[in-house]
C-alpha cells in the first residue's frame, strides 16, 4: 500500500490492522513517510523505544516530532526533550490535543496516531471519538494528513464504526 497515494485526495484515514501484523504495518508506513515531517503520537510505545526501533530499522527520525502520552504514567519525565513532548497520561486528552496542535501549527505534513486501541484502555468510546474529531479538524486547518491506527478486534468495532464516519477513508491494511 502506498500511503501517500491513498491520502492524495482523502486526507484523513483510519488504518485497521490485525494485532499480529501491527509492527510490520506501522514500520512499513513510517518508512514511506521518512522524508515527510511527521507528528507521531504514541500511546503504547515509549519515545525511547520508538527511537531505538526506528534506528534499528534504519528509519530516519530527523523529521519526526513525537508526542509520548505513556512514559509519564510510570516514570518522572520532563515536559519535553529533543524531538518529543511528553503528555501526562492517556487520560489527559486536552493536554494531548494541545500538544498535537502545537506541533501541527509548524506546518507538519502528517499526524500519525498510534493508536486508538491503546487509548481505549483509558477512555470510553465517546471521548475517543471526540478526540479524533478535534484532531482531524486541527489537521485539516493546518493542511496536514492524518492517520489513525486501530487494531482489528470485536471490542473496538463500535469505536471503529463511529470514527469511520469522521475520517475520509477507512483502510484495512490486511487486505
Amino acid at each position, binding site marked *: 500500500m502506498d500511503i501517500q497515494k491513498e491520502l492524495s485526495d482523502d486526507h484523513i484515514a483510519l488504518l485497521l490492522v490485525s494485532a499480529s501484523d501491527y509492527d510490520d504495518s506501522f514500520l512499513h508506513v513510517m518508512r514511506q513517510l521518512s522524508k515527510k515531517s511527521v507528528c507521531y503520537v504514541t500511546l*503504547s510505545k*515509549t519515545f*525511547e523505544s520508538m527511537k531505538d526501533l526506528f534506528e534499528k530499522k534504519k528509519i530516519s527520525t530527523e523529521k519526526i516530532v513525537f508526542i509520548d502520552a*505513556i512514559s509519564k504514567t*510510570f516514570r518522572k519525565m520532563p515536559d519535553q526533550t529533543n524531538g518529543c513532548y511528553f503528555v501526562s497520561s492517556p487520560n489527559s486528552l486536552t493536554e494531548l490535543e494541545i500538544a498535537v496542535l502545537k506541533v501541527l501549527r509548524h506546518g507538519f505534513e502528517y499526524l500519525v496516531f498510534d493508536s486508538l486501541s491503546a487509548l481505549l*484502555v483509558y477512555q470510553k468510546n465517546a471521548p475517543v471519538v471526540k478526540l479524533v474529531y478535534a484532531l482531524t479538524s486541527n489537521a485539516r486547518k493546518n493542511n496536514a494528513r492524518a492517520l489513525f491506527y486501530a487494531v482489528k478486534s470485536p471490542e473496538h468495532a463500535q469505536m471503529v464504526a463511529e470514527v469511520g464516519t469522521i475520517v475520509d477513508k477507512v483502510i484495512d491494511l490486511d487486505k
Partner: protein
Amino acid sequence: MAKTIMIVDDEPDIRESVKMVLEKNGYKVVAAVNGDDCLEKLKKTKPALILMDIMMPGTPVRDVVPKIKDIKIAYLSVVRTGEAEREALLKEKNIVDFIQKPFDITDLAKRVKKIVGA
C-alpha cells in the same frame, strides 16, 4: 507460611491466569483491578511482591508507586520501552523487575520465585 503476591492488572484474564499459576506454586494471591484498588487492598495486606501492570485506567502508576512503602514491585508492561529505560526503572526504589507482556506464565512464576523465594 505462604508468601502473598499481589497482582494489579485491569485485564481479568491476566489476573486469573497469574493467580492460578502462583497459587499452584504455593503462593497466596491477592488481585487488584487498578492502582487505586491496589492501595486500598494494601491497607489490609502486605504482600511480599506486587506485580503491577503499567497501562491501566485510573490513577497513573507514577502516582501510585510512591505511596507503596517497603514492598517490592515488578512491572508488567505491554508498553514497549527501550533498554536504557528499563535499566533506569530498575534503579528506582522498590522496582525489582520489568516483565514485558505478553509473558510466559511459567517464566513469570520462576521470576517471582527468584525475587521472593518459594
